[in-house]
């Protein structure tokens, strides 16, 4: 094998290229992402380690299509703040190679044959909005699947959270559809569980955002 060429050898070293034509379009994740995206170290149903502070919660739900049929090949990703409302950022001093932070706040899972997904995490704190105002505790959620040419973006809120009344994002959602974003509290084996189904199409369709 020859030595790999450096970028400098063919004139692409450093600096900005011409302003690009525009964004790269999305395409579906398709049916075969399992091996590529849900590897042992990138399948992240469990977001916590023993040292993570905060109230442990389990999130559990199903992804359903327009017939109410389970979607067995969905990819779910979540992004959330820690219990203090702080998002872990790559430039945080705590996030360096070999020093895994006790809470990153990113989860990734696939649905099973029943369309079910789950995460073990902590309830996030309220996070800043603008000025002194805050957003109610919530988890950012992305859904990809065969048949979704672009991923869907939504949020999970907690039905038993009084701060929902003042949340600036929920306020944009038509009142009669807000319930689709609320995880319903329950308990299983002493642990708090929030149940939340994602309905892609039709009756009870989950609210998705244009972001």
């Amino acid at each position, binding site marked *: 094998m020859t030595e790999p060429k450096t970028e400098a050898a063919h004139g692409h070293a450093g600096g900005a290229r011409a302003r690009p034509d525009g*964004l790269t379009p999305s*395409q579906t994740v398709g049916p075969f992402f399992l091996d590529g995206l849900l590897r042992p170290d990138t399948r992240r149903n469990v977001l916590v380690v023993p040292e993570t502070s905060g109230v442990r919660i389990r999130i559990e739900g199903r992804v359903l299509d327009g017939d109410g049929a389970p979607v067995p090949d969905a990819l779910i990703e979540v992004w959330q*703040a820690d219990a203090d409302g702080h998002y872990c950022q790559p*430039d945080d001093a705590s996030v360096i190679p070999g020093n895994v932070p006790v809470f990153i706040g990113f989860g990734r899972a696939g649905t099973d044959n029943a369309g079910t997904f789950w995460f073990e995490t902590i309830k996030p704190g309220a996070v800043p909005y603008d000025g002194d105002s805050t957003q109610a505790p919530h988890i950012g959620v992305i859904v990809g699947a065969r048949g979704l*040419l672009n991923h*869907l973006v939504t949020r999970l809120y907690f039905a038993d959270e009084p701060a929902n009344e003042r949340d600036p994002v929920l306020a944009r959602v*038509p009142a009669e559809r807000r319930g689709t974003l609320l995880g319903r509290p329950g308990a299983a084996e002493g642990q708090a569980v929030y149940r939340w189904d994602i309905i892609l199409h039709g009756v009870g369709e989950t609210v998705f955002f244009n972001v």
Partner: protein
Amino acid sequence: MSTTTIGAIVRGDREVFPPYLYSAYRSTVKRAPSQPLVDVPLTITELTGPGAVISAVMTEDADLTRNAGTGGEAIGQRVIVTGRVMDEHGRPVPHTLLEIWQANAAGRYIHRNDQWPGPLDPNFLGIGRCLTDANGDYRFLTIRPGAYPWKNHPNAWRPAHIHFSLLGPSWVSRLVTQMYFPDDPLHARDPIFAAVPEAARSRLIAAYDHDVTEAEWALGWRWDIVLHGPRATPFEAPTAATTDGQGARSAPGAPGVDGTTGSEVGG
């Protein structure tokens, strides 16, 4: 191809991104949302992201011809796929995670649900990953994937493609897409590719680059990827947002209101 219903619900710029409903791609029909997407402000949740911390990427992960762990080499035309990850202003996106997956040279995936009688290659997993360098550049060594049949319509074949997943610097940068090779007669017959607005389709096609090709080793393809930047304006420092309200809503790629009216067009 039969008449296709193209939905009006699109996330992001409708001149760039495919609609959720594109009935020629049958799986969209029961999975596309039917209600308008809700416009919401970009907040700290959308303007931050997990970065590359989610996995320990090793150099070998970017060589799909040898990363099966068998000691053997994948069968097929060896190709280098390289390019730069940028934001919409042309600024490189460094140290971001790319994850790819693809069929083997015969068009077969290792996934259990891919059961067509194309041969498997024991030396090819079809998965790879790497981080962009400080210039935003990535580089994979792999084999050129084959086309493969699917059951969307009679005698349906997907054009050769490589799936790409990028986390980018923030939640709004997340992109899952596919890279294609030029001059493939299957492009025009593929509803997944054709669902992208025509003017933007060429952005999914890699360019042959003889400067990338290595003598007596591998053919070179160049494909740049442009992500939604973490900030709405070009000159703000890409630091973690503390607050961000409605002022950020002017971000490109996140326009206006979606409707629910589909239109019938030939396709």
